[in-house]
């Protein structure tokens, strides 16, 4: 029996340049305070990633600025240009790299989203992707005329309906519908562009399919429901599982669900989020990782993580001291928003954190750093490349959603030092396989299109 480490001896790693909504980088080192919002900086990042043969850029999303204890979160970079405006701009100055936007079904109109995303897909020559997310968050809904409240049980059904409407619009314009000559009887062939009647909407498509047919679909659900949604529709998944065993377990579970949904088990690419910090020696890499942590985990940011659970101001608690002795205020959800895990029960989280802190003798800062440290690869290019080769060949991951450590030069080190090491090991492309995102991810036609063909 083959060892799990070599389950896929010829697999290759995909890198995605990943920006969560409000990334951590050392902003005090940047040339400009507003570099994160500057399109010239994004152009530089995108070109660097493309030079490094990254499969795609990938943006996370929120439709409301994060708030903490009733105020706009001020300790971190927050917000971002509109993803599709940014991607339409970058489509004009890049040639191969994918452009994956996280767009929320709860806060978008499917007809509008279908057209905007198709515009980016056509303008980029078939490089767009959509990370389909859904929220049942009326706090974010306060930014919208139509609000955002969707019952939790209805959430995936509503998302499924939204997605079906979007995909129906993308499919409603047949390839080759437009005339090849000005002498044709009409600009489009009769019947080649169809109307979509769905979700109480009657709409016509606006654009022909791009060279990749339709944008690649990503998904980020973690729950069983979310994983099943992914197994039915997604071609890529954004995960948080990066410790080897957890990553392999997640991948195995998803492949099982894929097969159950009638798809081949290699039909979906798994991208956990991470950071990579390199050094000439192991100790230099560790030193740089420590420097980065110290500079990005300011006292205020460390304290804010704890305050988000405790639900009140802890500025009189030194971050190098213990967790608060008092219990959290339970009504935190009205006080802190936009941070992952706010839906966890504060008392339970506090108890778990106290357990870790007591067991290891951690201060607040050490605890917060501990909670966040498992998601990084730190080491020499050779050591990190070896480790990543192990992950990929075992089938634990297909790619990495890689956060840059700086703006706008944050991918340069990986491109210049890690990519060649990965290529030496045969786990990374040496040129783009094609011109579309779908080709470069090694994917076939979209799931909806396959269904279409089978049922026709």
């Amino acid at each position, binding site marked *: 029996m083959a060892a799990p480490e070599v389950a896929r001896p010829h697999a290759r790693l995909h890198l995605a340049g990943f920006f969560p909504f409000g990334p951590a980088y050392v902003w005090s080192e940047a040339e400009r*305070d507003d570099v994160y919002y*500057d399109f010239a900086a994004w152009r530089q990042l995108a070109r660097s990633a493309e030079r490094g043969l990254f499969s795609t850029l990938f943006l996370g999303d929120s439709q409301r600025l994060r708030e903490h204890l009733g105020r706009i979160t001020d300790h971190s970079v927050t917000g971002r240009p509109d993803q599709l405006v940014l991607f339409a701009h970058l489509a004009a100055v890049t040639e191969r790299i994918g452009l994956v936007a996280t767009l929320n079904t709860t806060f978008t109109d499917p007809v509008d989203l279908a057209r905007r995303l198709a515009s980016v897909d056509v303008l980029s020559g078939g490089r767009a992707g959509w990370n389909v997310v859904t929220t049942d968050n009326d706090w974010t809904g306060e930014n919208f*005329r139509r609000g955002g409240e969707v019952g939790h049980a209805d959430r995936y059904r509503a998302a499924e309906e939204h997605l079906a409407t979007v995909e129906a619009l993308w499919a409603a314009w047949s390839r080759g519908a437009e005339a090849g000559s000005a002498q044709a009887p009409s600009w489009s062939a009769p019947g080649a562009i169809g109307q979509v009647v769905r979700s109480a909407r009657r709409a016509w498509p606006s654009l022909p399919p791009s060279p990749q047919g339709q944008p690649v679909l990503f998904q980020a659900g973690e729950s069983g429901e979310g994983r099943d949604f992914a197994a039915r529709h997604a071609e890529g998944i954004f995960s948080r599982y990066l410790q080897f065993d957890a990553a392999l377990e997640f991948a195995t579970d998803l492949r099982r669900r894929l097969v159950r949904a009638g798809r081949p088990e290699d039909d979906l690419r798994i991208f956990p989020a991470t950071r990579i910090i390199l050094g000439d020696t192991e100790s230099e890499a560790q030193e740089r990782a420590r420097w980065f942590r110290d500079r990005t985990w300011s006292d205020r940011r460390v304290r804010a993580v704890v305050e988000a659970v405790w639900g009140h101001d802890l500025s009189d608690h030194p971050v190098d001291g213990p967790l608060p002795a008092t219990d959290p205020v339970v009504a935190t959800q009205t006080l802190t928003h936009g941070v992952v895990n706010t839906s966890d029960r504060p008392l339970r989280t506090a108890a778990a954190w106290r357990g870790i802190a007591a067991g290891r003798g951690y201060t607040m800062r050490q605890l917060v750093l501990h909670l966040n440290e498992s998601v990084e690869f730190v080491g020499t290019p050779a050591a990190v490349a070896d480790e990543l080769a192990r992950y990929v060949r075992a089938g634990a991951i297909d790619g990495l959603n890689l956060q840059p450590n700086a703006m706008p030069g944050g991918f340069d080190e990986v491109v210049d030092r890690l990519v060649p090491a990965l290529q030496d090991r045969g786990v990374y492309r040496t040129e783009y396989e094609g011109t579309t995102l779908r080709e470069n991810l090694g994917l076939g036609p979209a799931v909806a299109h396959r269904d279409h063909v089978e049922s026709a």
Partner: protein
Amino acid sequence: MDERSVIGIEIDGDGAHPAAWRAAAHAPNTLLTAGRLREVGDRAERAGFGFVTLADVTATAPGTGVAGRFDPLTAAAFLSATTSALGLVPVVHPAHAEPFHVSNQLSSLDHGSRGRAGWLVGTEATPARAAAHGVRHQTDPQLLAAEAEDVVDATRRLWDSWQDDAIVADESTCRFLDADRVHHIDFRGRTFGIRGPALMPRPPQGQVPVLAPPGVLPDRLVDVEIVAAPTEEGLRAAAARARAPKVLAEVEVALGPDPAGVPWPVGERLRHTGSTADLVALLGRLATVVDAVRLVPAVLDRDLPLLAEQVLPALDLRRPAPGGTLRELFDLPRPAGRYAS
């Protein structure tokens, strides 16, 4: 009044004539491509146009003409990377629009173009638009006006929601933002309310210039009023009535015969047909009564080269400068934010 004019051009499809595609210099199946969009942007910029507008109409059942278009704001975002001086003015219709999206998208376009974005406020409120959005068709003009006012007002408030000095990036206090300089707008209009703030810093122009026809919005929300009339006298009268800081006249141009013998239905706009010399004279006269003109060509591939070679060079133009903003081109000051202290 500065008698130098700003001239812009509408670049939707192959032109405004229903059979324009038959006279286009490219095959129909290359219209909706990046290459074509880039080329049109380049030609407009090289010709000296101050701005391009990008029309929007909800897609309906295909007839014999062009059946598709890019999302205008997304197409403008593409052009923000391929041009360096041209103003980029997409149409966005307020009816059924989410101002939070509109605001962030136009603000992002302004950031991406370094201050070259404008907003042509559209008036589409058709049954087809309502059906595409899955909402009831609204015909009450008072409700439509209230909705348009609320959408534009909320959008403008969101643009101001980050003060110009909101980013402090102060490592000593561990603060990236000054939270006192980023504001919930807590907008309460007649038709809806929203909270804010916007997702990104104030646009480079402070407020993206808002271009709108008369009667669509209250004066306070309009930077450039778009006037149209079938005759030159009518256009002069409309310009005299305009109350916005700047006035833009719309002129349709057909510098050649109707393609395929298909007539171009006459609308509410002044139309120039015939010689380029007469057009130069017309635009010269209009320059004394309006600040800008938007040309709507019948056939883009035929009319744009003639405008570039024979019309624009003969006019005393305000031309956009690389690095300049659309406000600078229109001689509109950059407004202070409403929350500025």
